[in-house]
């Protein structure tokens, strides 16, 4: 049977695959994203520190440095286009003694080589910026160009925009085999799909070396590192105002304390060797994070913790990103090992790789390309909420009381391209179920809304991946 031939297939709908797809949609291209999960952004892209690093930290002349510095500067624009809650908060790296001051100075110099401006500040200025710091802190490296972003909306926004501009997405399509045939690639998925493409992009995150091995011997090996986090409720609007890092020492990078774009706070990550799929948390991890974070801040309301989770980062044995077209297999692009600062670098990587592909395939400009997604129905005052209710009364019917999410907002999200079909998908994009009650009150209503809007029975609504339906058995 003759298969449809794609120009490009991207394996993986994390932030990297999503970004490549979105920038590729600037061109006329027949492109398909294959994602093994039931939603986009389900692995490291959905469990990370959500920081847009400014780029002073990576070793000069690495891909990390290059893409981080360019990528960080792209967030203002993407925020305008995709509404990703980017906030330029700056970051502070905190020193506790004179050894740390020496390290901070060398980081500042490194920043200068990378082209990133930072400043070293003393105790007085530190406490003006962050009144809740531990009283033992002495110095800070202030990177004012850094910021925070909503990583869930970044991925879903990139995907929605790519799909609006005619890219295709297939969920639940785990790649299990790839064949190179003449000048194209044949990709087999677990759900018995077979796809053919001229260009194949490996953006499969922590499976990067495994996917590569279908085509050629990988030049790198993924050495997954697990990071555990503890997330806190919004207990105080200005507990801290920006990400706080510890000055790195021989002992490692330490943990960070940060706020999210939704005014939650978190501590983390740990940094542990792990297996590819181990996203478990441990008591040792919790104890370590609680203890270490108190070096940065003067107290932590443990009672306000609402969630502990882990993410697995696609670190590798050469400690840098892999972003290249294979020199053995034309048309095979490896975009792999996108570890920290991967989120900050993601847009620059997407733009760069899409340009490489355009060159390879000689793609024409997409005249109908629209870089904007439809604005989310948000309200920051009651007048705006009234306007929304005038458009659709369901904007006034609130489903999630912890995070103030209304039925209208959920319906709007479901009907976007690449929109959520699962309870977790709603939670990631809209925060219904993200708050203090963790869905105890709203999950049932979310299931009913998904069922109604997607026209599927309520017992087929999944929590996340296929086979995770919550309502299992009819009662007697």
């Amino acid at each position, binding site marked *: 049977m003759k298969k449809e031939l794609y120009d490009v297939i991207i394996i993986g709908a994390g932030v990297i695959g999503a970004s490549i797809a979105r920038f590729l949609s600037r061109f006329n291209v027949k492109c398909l994203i294959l994602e093994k999960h039931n939603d986009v952004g389900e692995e490291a892209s959905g469990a990370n520190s959500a920081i847009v690093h400014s780029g002073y930290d990576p070793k000069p002349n690495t891909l990390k440095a290059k893409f981080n510095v360019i990528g960080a500067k792209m967030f203002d624009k993407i925020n305008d286009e995709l509404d990703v809650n980017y906030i330029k908060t700056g970051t502070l790296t905190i020193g506790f003694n004179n050894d740390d001051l020496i390290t901070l100075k060398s980081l500042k110099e490194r920043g200068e080589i990378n082209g990133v401006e930072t400043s070293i500040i003393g105790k007085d200025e530190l406490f003006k910026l962050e009144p809740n710091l531990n009283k033992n802190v002495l110095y800070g490296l202030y990177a004012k160009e850094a910021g925070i972003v909503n990583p869930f909306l970044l991925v879903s926004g990139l995907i929605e925009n790519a799909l609006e501009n005619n890219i295709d997405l297939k969920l639940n399509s785990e790649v299990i085999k790839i064949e190179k045939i003449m000048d194209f690639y044949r990709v087999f998925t677990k759900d018995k799909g077979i796809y053919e493409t001229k260009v194949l992009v490996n953006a499969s995150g922590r499976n990067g070396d495994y996917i590569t091995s279908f085509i050629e011997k990988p030049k790198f090996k993924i050495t997954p590192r697990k990071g555990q986090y503890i997330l806190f409720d919004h207990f105080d609007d200005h507990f801290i105002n920006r990400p706080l890092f510890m000055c790195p020492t021989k002992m490692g990078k330490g943990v960070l304390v940060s706020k999210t774009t939704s005014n939650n706070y978190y501590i983390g990550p740990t940094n542990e060797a792990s297996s590819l799929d181990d996203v478990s948390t441990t008591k040792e991890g919790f104890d370590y994070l609680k203890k270490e974070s108190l070096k940065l801040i003067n107290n932590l309301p443990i009672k306000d913790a609402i969630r502990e989770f882990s993410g697995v980062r696609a670190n590798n044995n050469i400690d840098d990103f892999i972003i290249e077209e294979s020199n053995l297999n034309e048309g095979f692009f490896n975009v792999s090992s996108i570890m920290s600062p991967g989120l900050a670098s993601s847009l620059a990587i997407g733009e760069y790789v899409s340009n490489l592909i355009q060159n390879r395939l000689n793609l024409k400009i997409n005249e109908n390309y629209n870089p904007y997604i439809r604005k989310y129905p948000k309200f920051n005052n009651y007048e705006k909420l009234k306007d929304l209710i005038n458009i659709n009364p369901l904007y006034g*019917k609130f489903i999630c009381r912890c995070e103030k999410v209304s039925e209208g907002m959920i319906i709007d999200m479901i009907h976007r391209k690449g929109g959520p079909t699962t309870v977790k998908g709603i939670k990631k994009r809209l925060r219904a179920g993200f708050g203090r009650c963790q869905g105890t009150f709203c999950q049932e209503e979310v299931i009913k809304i998904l069922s109604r809007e997607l026209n599927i029975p309520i017992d087929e609504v999944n929590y996340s991946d296929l086979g995770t339906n919550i309502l299992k058995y009819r009662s007697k």
Partner: protein
Amino acid sequence: MENVSLVIIGGGSAGLASAISAYDNGVKDILVIERSHELGGILNQCIHSGFGLSLLKEELTGPEYAHHFINELKKRNIKYLLDSLVLEINKNLEVVYSNSFGVNKIKAKAIICALGCNERTFSQIFIPGDRPKGVYTAGLAQKYLNIDGYLVGKNVYILGSGDIGLIMARRMTLEGANVIGVSEIMPYSNGLNRNIVQCLNDFNIPLYLKTTVSKIVGNKVLEGIEISDVDDKQNIILNTNRFIKCDTLLLSVGLYPFNTLLNKAGCKKNSLTNGALIDNNFETTIEGIFTTGNGLHVHDLVDFVSEESFIVGKKAAELILNLRNDVISELNVNNKDNVSYVLPNTIKLTNNNEEVYFYLRVRKKINKGKIKILNNNKIIYSFIKMYLEPSEMIKFKIESNLLINLKEIDVEIEEIK
């Protein structure tokens, strides 16, 4: 802006009783604002019986108990809104709510917050391990079963022997699920004795005291859990972990007041209950904002919620109708030995000689205790009570003249060996 004498936030057991009581005490202009699509609150999903024995002298199911109060509300033509969420209250006694008709701000003479409580989740008690589907609070599983008609699983383990957990052990067994066991971190159950007997013993469901869930296992769906023994300080004893295969873990590990609205308004928080600080009128630190029910402190029985809320409705009516007497002295109340919390936190005395009610919980199980109110270490009131348990709220009242001119009292329980 619309004016309403009394706004009651929450149409569950506390909201209903306080509305009825305020009405009967002379306030006719009342608005009850309910988040969900029906009145009755969490009672609607509690289809087991045992409600009303103390207050109504008959044994009712949750929906029947709610129905009784909803009827009383309707008889009085008290106004209520459904599917309406209060977004904000403030110290000027303004209430902003939203529903599909719009966003409204109303000005009240008094607000009663009857907000109910949250269930503690597995994250709040830091259970390590994976994050699969299959872990629920008992209340959510109860809603899925009793409201929607679905079991969330068939091989169930329950952590925590709170009443909802016990009730769900029986309910799921009756629906054909295999309830493997119940773990309780304390050396005693936190549920009512009648529930231990009727929900566990009668169905041969084992209760493992001094154990807890030490790990959640399962990639996408729950595959099992590890339970471990704990020592006297509730710390896990290493190498006592054993794996239990199950597809569902239900948590019944405590309830705590929902207080976001009160906190945001600026009402001072009670760190011991997670509710607000109150005086003997159930008024928060903001004049005109009252709080009651499980949104103030978690009760053992709904009957006690209703009783308390009858008082609160009356107190709010007294403020609205200018029936309050001048305060002649004011004192603080502290919890001391063996008392985990006591309400009220302050007492404002007037010359109407009204009795003062106290609500408290004991910190640990005590067979025989002497409950004492002290001022400067001098006992001003005491009584002996047998079989004190953390799961049972202690209520008593004293004559107000015992308290006149005091600045501070301590409430403690002496264990009598």
